[in-house]
């Protein structure tokens, strides 16, 4: 099986704290891989490091290209989409401007985005900062779906959303995973079970477990790795 992402011995320090202490992981091409772990173990840092937003040392290969030390925009142009934890839509820009800024000039597919999120079309002229959390998440995901990207890095897509928006986002990700590899940070084990085929668990800055999503059915394992009861 091909790898969409390969990370070797990744170390990252933030403000003197050694957050990632030699992460080795491999994300198989196709489907959804969930990156799990307790709060503060370095899941978001790992995603940010993959696209150069967080400097670190170690080997990173994205879609078959070694990208360690590359600037972020160059890594993204390999065909990577990134949806950050806090959505990070541009509050002072309208919805349509938020989408327009994601255009890279090739294979733009607004119809696809508007078919997935009709709300975005209706609110095209509304300032993104005035959208609800769920609508902002739609916009953040819509932004990376504007063109075909073979790899999507999505950080906590359901965080802070109402049940209605959670099911809407999950539904969209079901469709997205048919055409792209998704590496997703997610705390909600039920969402992971429904979406992911594979899981990678981080603990103390390293990979503590790699396996199938079905492994999460093992209650002892889940409690030990994630500290959650099912």
């Amino acid at each position, binding site marked *: 099986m091909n790898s969409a992402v390969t990370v070797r011995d990744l170390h990252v320090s933030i403000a003197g704290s050694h957050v990632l202490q030699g992460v080795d992981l491999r994300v198989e091409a196709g489907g959804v891989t969930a990156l799990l772990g307790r709060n503060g173990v370095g899941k978001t840092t790992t995603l940010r490091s993959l696209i150069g*937003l967080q400097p670190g040392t170690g080997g990173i290969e994205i879609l078959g290209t070694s990208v360690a030390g590359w600037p*972020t925009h160059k890594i993204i142009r390999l065909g990577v989409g*990134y949806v950050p934890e806090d959505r990070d839509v*541009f509050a002072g*820009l309208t919805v349509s*401007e938020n989408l327009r*800024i*994601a255009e890279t000039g090739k294979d733009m597919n607004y119809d696809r985005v508007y078919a997935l999120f009709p709300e975005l079309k209706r609110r095209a002229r509304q300032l993104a900062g005035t959208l609800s959390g769920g609508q902002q998440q739609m916009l953040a995901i819509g932004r990376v779906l504007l063109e075909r990207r073979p790899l999507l890095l999505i950080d906590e897509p359901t965080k802070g959303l109402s049940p209605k928006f959670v099911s809407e986002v999950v539904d969209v990700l079901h469709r997205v995973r048919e055409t792209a590899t998704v590496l997703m940070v997610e705390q909600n084990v039920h969402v992971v079970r429904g979406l992911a085929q594979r899981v990678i668990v981080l603990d103390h800055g390293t990979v503590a477990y790699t396996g199938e999503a079905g492994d999460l059915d093992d209650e002892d394992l889940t409690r030990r790795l994630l500290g959650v009861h099912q």
Partner: protein
Amino acid sequence: MTTFIAITVSGLALGAVYFLISSGLSLIYGLMDVLNFAHGVFLTLGAYAGWAVAQHVPQRGPAFVLTALAAAAAGAAVAALTEIALIRPLYGRPVSQILVTIGLDLALVGLLLGGFGSDSRPVPVPGWVSAVTAIGPERIPNGDFAALAVGLAVLAALTWFLRRTRYGIVIRAGAENRDMVRALGIDVGRAFTLVFAIGGAAAGLAGLLNSVVFNSALVDPEQGDQLLIFAFIVVVIGGLGSITGSAIAALLVGLVQVYVTFYAGHGAGLGQLGNMSVVLLLAAVLLVRPRGLLGRAA
């Protein structure tokens, strides 16, 4: 009443010059968090470029446009080079950026003083620029109208650019969250250079217009530094990063300065009252609205 009209037009023209300087400062700070103390010398170099071109172009009819284009081009080129060579290696190091821009300003002003001397040099301008237009019994210099027209044109062009073009949207987005712009596959470095170039072009125009309208058509090596302090005041009053705020603040500062100088600045020891009034205006705005007229809350 007619005197009031003349000094009002003069205040608006001065405001237009302040806007041209402060728009670049505000854009640069808004996008890059760079306090550019070399902005004044961009203005001076623009004025000297205009002066140099005007020496060789017969000043008839629209020749002044060529002079103005030379001033804008020189300002843009020097600003872009400054960003690429000096600012880019220092992103994330604000103190170093401030020091390097102060150093650049001192060095370039020193070079101008060495090359051209401290004497002012006259800029040849077409007759229509130095002529006056009669409005009733009042005679208003055409230069005032020219400065006002250029200021309005630059405001309209900047607004169109920031609202309607993709690069404009990138610049507005970058002012909010540079990392996210990068994470959408955009080379923010190019936007930085572009913003410096735009700011430099506007400053170059301001340098030429200031010479022609407010400095008896003379250029001198230190004119930029004298204006820079007022431009910083305009940026703070308008709200850091806000072009519209800068435009409003520039007109306000220009009008207040001219009114106070004219109505209260006569007499011994009162010559600086106009300048003092601007500082008082700054203090008043900051007391009432610390983020400036249209600045975003921190």
